[in-house]
């Protein structure tokens, strides 16, 4: 015999089911359980939308007509993902041309593969999340807050596992590494924020933070390929935490400022 809990769960999971489409065990339960039957009848009551007050529809239409122009629809997530991949590759190539990737000679194949795959994975997810967050009502592939926590944590674990600690090198050429990383993050971040400014994110700060993650990961990749101080203490502190922290923080603040123009009360 089915319990009320099971029946209520079934009704919640099938909100548009009609009486004829209910399974036998639910119908049997509704026959003898009065509160569940009451709930079922209540859910069948049509909750009608009210008629609009006189003139309201006309007033809204008039305001819309005052500024009705054809608009260019925002690119699809796939197109945006391609553009972001292009920006990432452009910045990595520019880093290689301008700086020369000196660290490549000292890195093992495993270090290159694992760090490379983790970074590319983080960048791909950041791009995917960003393209969804910048328009209302799109399906998110994962929780963006979890993503913001997981990227630094996962990369920290990977870096700590792949490179020796050597804490005495903590303060070696720290600012040059951070500035170099940020110099390559900046164009990627500016591009992402420009897209954000054109779009209409409902959580502008969050979308900005994800844009910051994308930009920060570009900086992290360039710095790690260039810098020859291959210790986890240095990479974690300056390439990862400092660069990513600054990028995400700035992204969130700028995103909040730039991304609210369509949804602010004043418009």
């Amino acid at each position, binding site marked *: 015999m089915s319990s009320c809990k099971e029946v209520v769960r079934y009704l919640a999971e099938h909100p*548009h089911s009609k009486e004829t489409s209910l399974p036998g065990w639910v119908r049997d339960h509704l026959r003898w359980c009065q509160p569940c039957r009451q709930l079922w009848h209540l*859910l069948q009551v049509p909750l009608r939308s*009210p008629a609009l007050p006189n003139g309201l529809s006309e007033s809204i239409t008039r*305001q819309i007509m005052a500024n009705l122009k*054809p608009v260019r*629809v925002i690119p699809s997530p796939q197109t945006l993902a391609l553009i972001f991949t292009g920006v990432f590759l452009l910045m990595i190539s520019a880093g290689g041309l301008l700086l020369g990737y000196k660290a490549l000679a000292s890195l093992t194949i495993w270090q290159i593969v694992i760090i490379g795959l983790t970074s590319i994975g983080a960048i791909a997810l950041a791009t995917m999340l960003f393209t969804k967050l910048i328009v*209302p*009502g799109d399906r998110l592939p994962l929780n963006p807050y979890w993503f913001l926590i997981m990227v630094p944590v996962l990369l920290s674990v990977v870096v700590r596992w792949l490179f020796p600690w050597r804490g005495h090198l903590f303060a070696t050429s720290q600012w040059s590494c951070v500035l170099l990383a940020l110099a390559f993050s900046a164009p990627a971040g500016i591009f992402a924020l420009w897209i954000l400014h054109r779009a209409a994110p409902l959580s502008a700060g969050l979308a900005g933070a994800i844009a910051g993650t994308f930009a920060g990961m570009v900086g992290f990749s360039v710095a790690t390929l260039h810098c020859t101080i291959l210790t986890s203490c240095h990479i974690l502190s300056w390439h990862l935490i400092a660069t990513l922290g600054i990028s995400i923080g700035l992204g969130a603040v700028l995103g909040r400022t730039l991304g609210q123009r369509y*949804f602010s009360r004043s418009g």
Partner: protein
Amino acid sequence: MPEYTQSSELNEEGLRELMIRYQQADANAANQLVAALSPALLRFFAANPYTRDHAEDLLQECWMRIHRARHTYRPSEPLLPWVFAIARHTKVDALRRSHRTNSREVELSDFHQATIGVEAKPHYADYDLQRLLAELPESQREVIIMLKVSGMSLEEVARATSTTVGAVKQKAHRAYRKLRRILEERMNSQGTNT
């Protein structure tokens, strides 16, 4: 071309077609879209006890936001989650403003708090669904309104509320459980009275 009136069912395909024409500056499509969507949006705003009095203002504000952000609707995506995500954002903004105003007013006058308390707790004169919905927390109520008024699917509600289908099912389940409990209590009290 689909022609909509206020009483029409919300048909996703037809609405999407109107929206695409609205993006191309078709005045007739804009007109029909306003007529088709406004009743459901008005119900959505009126369902909350704190925004009920301003539902018409919120509807206008929501349409202005829809108008300004119309280029962000992608024709390959369903329209209702996009519209209701903007409506929900408009309502959340209004609730924040309302709470800010109320908290300031409470400091000035204690008797106003009593008034708010009365408004927020509706009486149960009958089994009317709307009155029962007023008993639910906002997050559960808006899920039920979206499911029932606009006939959105669980997936579409999940998109509009930026959550997962699992979370929407959970909210609907909690809401139904609470509604069932209220109905049971009322049946028991009626039995005791008679």
